[in-house]
C-alpha cells in the first residue's frame, strides 16, 4: 500500500510539475483560440452581458463618485497622445485656440458650430472625479465644462440618433495631425446617446481650475464618468450624431475599439 501511495504521489508530482513548467496558454491553445474569429465572437458575448447588466443596475443618471479638492492627484498622468503636433495644431496652441471650432452635426435639427469662448459663456458644471485607465491606474482631477446634454438640446437630437461620434485632432499612429477625420490612426470615440445625456457628461475646457493643457486634451475633451479613460476623448473638434458607427473608420466605434478593446468601457 505504501509503495502504491508513493508511486501515486510521484505521478501526481510529475503531473503537477509538468503543468507548472509547461506554458499555461499552450496547454489549452489559448493563442490559437484568441486568433480564431469565431472564438473571439464567443468571448465578445461577455461585453453584451456586462453592458446589459450594468444598464440594469445603473439607475438612469446614477452619479459617479465626486471627491474633495484635497483628493486631486498632484500629478494627473497623461496617456495616449501627449501633443497632437503638426503645423495646424501648433498654430492653434500659439493662438490660444481662438480659431478652434466645435462642430455638432449629423442627426440633429440645428447643426452647431461653437468657439471655445462661446462654450465658456454657456452654463457649466464642475466636478472632481476619478479617472480609471484601462491599464489599471487611477487619478483624480477636477473638470469644468458644458454639460453635453445642454448642447444636444440646443442642436435638437433626431429620433433616429443612437450614438455620438467624437472626432479628435490627434493621430496615435505617430503622424502629426493632418486634420483628416478618418485617416489611419486618427483618434475618435463614440458613446451611447443615453450616456451623453448624463448630467456628469461634459465637454470639459478646464482642468483643476485652469484651461486644459496640451497633454490632457486642450482645448476640449470629453468626460463620461461611468467609463474607462480611453472613452474620454481629447482634442475634440467634431461631434456627429449617428444611428450606427459601423461605417466609420474601422467600424468598432473608436481608435482603441478598432484595436481590439471593448466598445463598452464600464468595466
Amino acid at each position: 500500500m505504501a509503495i502504491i501511495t508513493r508511486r501515486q504521489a510521484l505521478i501526481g508530482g510529475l503531473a503537477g510539475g509538468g503543468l507548472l513548467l509547461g506554458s499555461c496558454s499552450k496547454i489549452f491553445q489559448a493563442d490559437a483560440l484568441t486568433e480564431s474569429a469565431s472564438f473571439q465572437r464567443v468571448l465578445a458575448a461577455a461585453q453584451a452581458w456586462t453592458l446589459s447588466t450594468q444598464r440594469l443596475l445603473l439607475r438612469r443618471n446614477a452619479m459617479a463618485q465626486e471627491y474633495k479638492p484635497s483628493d486631486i492627484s498632484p500629478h494627473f498622468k497623461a496617456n495616449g497622445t501627449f501633443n497632437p503636433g503638426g503645423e495646424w495644431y501648433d498654430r492653434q496652441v500659439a493662438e490660444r485656440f481662438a480659431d478652434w471650432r466645435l462642430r455638432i452635426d449629423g442627426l440633429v435639427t440645428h447643426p452647431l458650430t461653437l468657439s471655445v469662448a462661446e462654450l465658456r459663456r454657456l452654463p457649466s458644471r464642475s466636478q472632481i472625479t476619478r479617472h480609471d485607465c484601462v491599464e489599471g491606474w487611477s487619478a483624480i482631477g477636477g473638470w469644468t465644462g458644458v454639460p453635453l446634454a445642454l448642447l444636444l438640446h440646443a442642436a435638437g437630437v433626431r429620433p433616429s440618433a443612437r450614438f455620438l461620434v467624437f472626432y479628435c485632432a490627434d493621430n496615435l499612429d505617430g503622424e502629426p495631425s493632418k486634420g483628416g477625420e478618418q485617416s489611419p490612426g486618427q483618434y475618435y470615440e463614440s458613446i451611447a446617446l443615453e450616456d451623453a445625456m448624463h448630467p456628469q457628461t461634459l465637454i470639459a475646457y478646464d482642468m483643476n481650475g485652469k484651461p486644459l493643457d496640451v497633454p490632457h486634451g486642450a482645448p476640449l475633451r470629453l468626460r463620461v464618468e461611468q467609463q474607462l479613460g480611453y472613452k474620454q476623448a481629447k482634442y475634440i473638434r467634431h461631434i456627429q450624431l449617428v444611428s450606427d458607427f459601423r461605417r466609420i473608420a474601422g467600424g468598432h466605434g473608436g481608435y482603441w475599439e478598432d484595436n481590439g478593446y471593448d466598445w463598452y468601457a464600464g468595466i
Partner: protein
Amino acid sequence: MLMQRTAGALAGRRHAADVEPGREVIHRHAWPVRVTHWINALTLFILVGSGLNILNAHPRLYWGQKGSDFDHAFITLHAWPDWLIVPSYTDLADARHWHFFFAWVLVVNGVVYLLWSLLSRHIQRDLWPTTADLRAIPSSIRDHVLLRHPRGEAAKRYNVLQRLAYLGLLLLVCGMVVTGLAMSPGLDAAAPWLVWALGGRQSARTLHFLFAFSIVLFIAVHLAEVALAGVINEVRSMITGRYTVPRERS
C-alpha cells in the same frame, strides 16, 4: 448504520458490489460538485493567467482611491513571464476578453454550486466544521504536517482543515468577484458604498491581486494534498465519484 448517517453525504452511497473484504468503494462526490469543480478549475486557471496579463499593463499596486506612476506604490511587481499568462503574449485587449468572459463563467458556475450546496445541505453537512472538528484542529494540523492521511471511517468525511480550506476558497472567490466589480467605473456609480467599504478603487485592485495570490496558494496546497493522498483515487473520485476508502492500518 449510525456511522453511515453521521458520515454525511460524502459517504452517502456504498457500492454494494464493491463491498468486499479489505476494499471498500464509496460514492464520494455528488455530480453537481464534480461538474462545478472542473469548470471552476479551468476557469480559475484562465482567470489567473489573463489577470496576470492584465496586470502586466501596469504592474504597480496602490492603496486608496487613486494611484499612478507618480504616486507611492503599495506593491511594485515586474512583468509576468509569457509562459504564465493567457494568452501567452502581453496584450491588454485580448486578455480582458478572456478575463471578462470567464469571470461570467465563474459567477454562473459559483451561483449554481452555492445554490445546490445550500439546498442539498452539502455546505451545512460536509463543509461547516462541527465543534468536535474545531477541537481537533491542533491534531489535524499535526497529521497534515506529518503527512498522515485519514483512513477508514475518518477518510469518508472531510477533516477540519479541508473544511476550513474549502470554505476559505468559497470566501476568496466571492472576494474576487466583489473586488473585481469594485474596479468597474460603471458599477462604482451604481454602488459607491462598495468602493468605499474596500478602501478605494486602487485598494480593491490590490485586494483583487492578494486574493488571487491566496487562491494560487490554495491550489498549490490542494494539488500537493491530492498527490500525497493518492492521485488516481482522488482524481477518479472527482470524475466518477467512486472513491476507495484507504484501509485502517492494522
